[in-house]
Structure formats: C-alpha cells, structure tokens
C-alpha cells in the first residue's frame, strides 16, 4: 500500500473514531442527573422560570432530535452555547484550552526532554550506579500521583521557601488579554508556570525515561553502534545521534498516549495550583450540568489525544524509513 492510500485509510479511521467518540459523549452527558437550572434554584429561581429555561435550551426535545441538532452544530465547528454562561462555548473555552495546552505542553516537553536524555544515559551506562539510582528515582516519581507531587512542591517551594507564587497564572491586576507572547511570554507568567509544570513533568517523566532506557539497551546491542564506535566518532555523537535517535522511535507513539494522561491529569494540577485551565472548567461544567461546555471540553481533550495518535502514526512513517504502510 502506498503512502497516500495509507494516509487516506488513517483519515477514514479518524473520522469513524471521532463520530463514535462524540456519540458516546452525547449519551454519557444526557445520562447525567439534574439539569442546568439546579444551581439557580436555591438562589430563587421559581418553578415557572425553571420550566421556561429548560424549554429554551431545547432539553425537553426528544433525545434523537437533540443528538442530530448537536451533531449538525459540531459539523459547522460550533460547540453551541453554554447553558449557564449563555455565551458561545468556544469563547469560554478557547482561552482555557490554550492555558491548559501551554501548561501541559511545557510539562510534557520537559518530561520528554529530561526523560529522553536521562533514559539514554541510563541505557548507555548500563549496570552503573547511575543507572540503578536512576531507575529507583524514576520509579519513585512514577509512583507519586500528581496531586501528591503538587502538594509537596507547594509546601516546599511556596510555604517553606517562598520562592514561587502559590496559584494562578499571573499576578492579578495587570492588563488582561493581549496576544500570545504577552500572555505566555512574561517572566511573571513563567514564575507562575514553574511549579505546576514541574509537577506535570515529574509525573510524566517516568514513561519516556524507562522506555528510552529499555530501547537504548536494545539498540546498543545492534552492530551499527559498534561500527559507529569503530569509526572513531565521539561517544556523544554515537550516543545521541545514533543510539538515542534510534531509541526515540517507540517514544513517538507513547507520547501520543502520554498526551492523553496529561489532558486528564490537568484536572488535578489545575485544581492544586488554581490554574485557569480547561480541566477545572470541565469539572465545574459537569457539576453545573452545563452539557455543551462540558462536552466541548471533553471533546477537545479527547480530540487532542486522537489527533496526537494520528500524528504519531504519520510521524513514525516519517521518522523510521523502514516502516511499511500496512
């Protein structure tokens, strides 16, 4: 099968996956007890107001009608309107989504950079004290849930040492909005980013490190490593350009999966550090029965993973010349 046919097939699969994912979401959310008016009732919404609001939201329509309507909307790239905020979901969620992506992206980036380097070195110096120590450290990191890491970091760096702010994304009171660079480029932002990103990095460090190490061990057994050494290339070149470069391939697939855990894990990290991200927004939306918002958040998280998987497959083809399109 040629590359083109392969890509076409993958795209078709992608579409089916998206459709099924969306359907499951829809069913799941319609099964949730309560409706979006619950949160106003104790604040004085009368029964008449309530019924009127539900009709307004189309929640008294039959389920299949709601399903078709929602599917249509989604095809137009429209996530609908938030039941609670009454704003277009996309307006509410776009900024949250970027905040989450920046946070978790940084965390993953660090996890993978550190993990790949450490894993490669651990594999290279196999059976050394560094490797044995490294494995234990990695396993300890992997055994610590994100919230625990966050709490420990918070206790040490904020409450004990006072080096970092305890929460939020920037010092309050400044100019809001602004372009990407202004939002995410400032020193103030980076100070706020550090601890939550570190928490994520520690939590996601183990997978790339261990996988890198074990594939390194395989690759190092390969003849070409010996040849590269015999060629008189410096150790650094052999380690990073050849051994590590070959070991990194399986990580591409795993990275896509890690994105999934990171998307889910963002809920915890955002809660501990009060990060204005999508994970928390989703939990709020679930609690408020704001289906369009919660579904959009869920859908976006899932989409990132599904697309990352897709990209990983294609990237694999690009990175490993041996792969055949089966």
């Amino acid at each position, binding site marked *: 099968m040629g590359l083109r046919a392969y890509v076409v097939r993958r795209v078709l699969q992608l579409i089916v996956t998206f459709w*099924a994912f969306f359907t499951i979401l829809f069913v799941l959310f319609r099964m949730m007890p309560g409706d979006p008016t619950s949160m106003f009732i104790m604040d004085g919404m009368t029964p008449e107001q309530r019924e009127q609001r539900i009709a307004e939201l189309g929640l008294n329509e039959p389920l299949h009608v709601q399903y078709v309507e929602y599917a249509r909307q989604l095809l137009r790239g429209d996530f609908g309107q938030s039941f609670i905020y009454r704003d277009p979901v996309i307006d509410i969620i776009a900024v949250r989504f970027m905040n989450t992506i920046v946070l978790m992206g940084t965390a993953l980036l660090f996890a993978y950079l550190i993990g790949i380097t450490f894993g490669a070195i651990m594999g290279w110096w196999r059976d050394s004290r560094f490797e044995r120590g490294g*494995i234990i450290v990695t396993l300890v990191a*992997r055994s610590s849930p994100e919230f625990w890491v966050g709490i420990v970091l918070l206790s040490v760096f904020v409450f004990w040492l006072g080096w970092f702010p305890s929460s939020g994304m920037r010092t309050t009171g400044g100019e809001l909005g602004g372009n990407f660079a202004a939002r995410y480029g400032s020193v103030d932002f980076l100070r706020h980013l550090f601890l939550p990103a570190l928490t994520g990095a520690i939590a996601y460090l183990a997978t790339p490190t261990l996988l890198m190490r074990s594939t390194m061990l*395989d690759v190092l057994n390969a003849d070409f490593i010996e040849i590269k050494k015999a060629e008189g290339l410096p150790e650094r070149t052999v380690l990073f350009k050849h051994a590590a470069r070959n070991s990194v391939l*399986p990580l591409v697939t795993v990275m896509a999966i890690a994105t999934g855990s990171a998307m889910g894990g963002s809920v915890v990290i955002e809660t501990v550090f009060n990060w204005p991200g999508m994970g928390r927004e989703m939990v709020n939306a679930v609690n408020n029965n704001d289906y369009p918002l919660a579904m959009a958040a*869920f859908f976006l*998280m*899932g989409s990132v993973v599904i697309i990352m*998987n897709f990209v990983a497959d294609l990237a694999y083809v690009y990175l490993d010349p041996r792969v055949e399109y089966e």
Partner: protein
Amino acid sequence: MSTERTSPTDRTETDGGTLEFIRSKLEIFEGDRLGQIGLGILCSFILIGIFARPYTIDFLNLTIPGLAPHDPAERAVGGRLESPSGAHPLGTTHMGRDVLSQLIAGTRVTLIVGSLAAFMAVFIGTNVGLISAYFGGWVDDVLMRITDIVYGVPFLPFAIVLVAILGSSIVNIIVAIVLILWRSTARVIRAQVLSHKQRPYVESAQAIGASHTRIMYRHILPNVLPLTFLYAAFAVAWAVIAEASLSFLGFGDPNMLSWGEMIYNVYTANAIREAWWWVFPPGICIMLFVMSVFFIGRTLEKEVNPELQHQ
C-alpha cells in the same frame, strides 16, 4: 554479543504442580534486590489490609481484633489535630479521628481497588487482544477502533462524569477505572498474539483441527500469559493512582476512606501545613504501594522479555 533467549514454545505441556509452579515463579526474584523489596512491601500491605479491621464470626461468637487501634470513622477519639503521641502514633485529624487507624483501614480500600480493577481490566484487555489478533479482519478492525476511541478518553474527566451519573461508590470507581484501563493490555496482547499466530505450533494445532477457542485459550494464551501478568502489575499501580486522584478531587466513595481521600480531607481541612502527620503517611503509603508493584513489575518484565517495550 549475542544473548541466548529461550524461544517461546508451546507451554501447555509444562503444567506442573501448582506449588511447584509458584516456587518456580518466585525464583525470578532471586538476586533481584528491588524485586524482593517490592514483594516484601506488597506482602506487608496485604497483611495489613486483611487484618485492618476486626472480624466477627457470628456462629462462633468470636471476634478477631483488627490492627487499627480505633474505628477510623470515630470522631473525637483524641483532640483536634493532635500531633503524634503514644495514644495516637500518627496523631489525629481535625475531627479528632485517629490517623493511624484511617491509614490501616485505607490499605484495604487500596488493595480492593488495585486488585479488582487490575484483574478485570487485564481480563478484558487480554480477551480483546486475543480475539482481535486471532480472528483479524473486521473483528480486529472493530475491536481496535474501539480501543482507539478509549485511548481518546482522558481518564479523570471520564471518571468524574461516570461517577456523576452512577454515584460515587467504590464499585463505580472500579468500573470507571476498568473501562479505561483495559486498553493498553489489549494493544500489547494483540501485538504479541499476532506474532504467535505465525508460529508453527499454532499451525499444527490448526492442522489437527483444534477449535478456535481451544487454540486461543489452550495454545496461544499460555504463551502470552507472562505478559498479561506484567500488565496486571502495571494495572494495579495505575488503578491505585487513579483511585487516589479521583478521591483527591472529591469523587471518592464517601463510605470507604482511602489514602487518596485522606489527603483530600487534609486538603479540604486546609491542614496540610500544620498536620504533616496526617498528610505524609497516606502520601508515602501510596508511593510505597505503587513502587512495590513497579519493582515487582520490573522483575516480571525481565522474565517476560528483556526487549519488551511498554508504556
């Protein structure tokens, strides 16, 4: 340097006595310090979990005392937020509950969640992988698409929604974990079975007219079983962390205090900074427990396949 590797063969013939089997399995821990440590920690937790609370055998009118000195839910057995003392070795909570007793009782919840969720997830995952790879074709297509979709579902948000629908009970939490967790086992087992499908022993079994079920479960399964055990170990670790995270977000089973929920309680009581005796023990227990499973997993991994690539 070529390392000789025992090539997997049809292991159905190697059925020995169960005891012998276990002993032979335990041998892999020989000379593996980390594995031994892991096994030791895990066994301690299992014992603590089993004897955490008193048992009453009604017809014998006998009560076996539990390890927990107090009822973990009993208020005001000590003062509010007392630091550790002889009476309360790990101090008390903001409601005067005994932290040590909670910790001991929480062990059981961890064990239940870890073992049940892992068992079910690996059971489903192994079957899906086996069926998918063995039959191939549209069966494979459908099952693998489903797996893809599940890979797209982020665990915590999904579990939160599911718990919102079904209510927060330990059973529902396990269901949520299992519904997500089977995916990795399915993929790995599928890959493994695909390679076994080509082996001569499968062909010869087909030649003598063995049924599909027989080939899958009597011939192929025993060969992928070590990998299944490995994934079960990872699944235990994952499930425990998942339960803890869910509890930490406040979606835990209110009637079953787990370690994650203990930390959640410290967190909502806003006592993390003063009550180190309350927040560190459950955190460290989670780490130790998961670590022990990983250590054991590493030992199994060496046994299964030194080249194995896992997540």
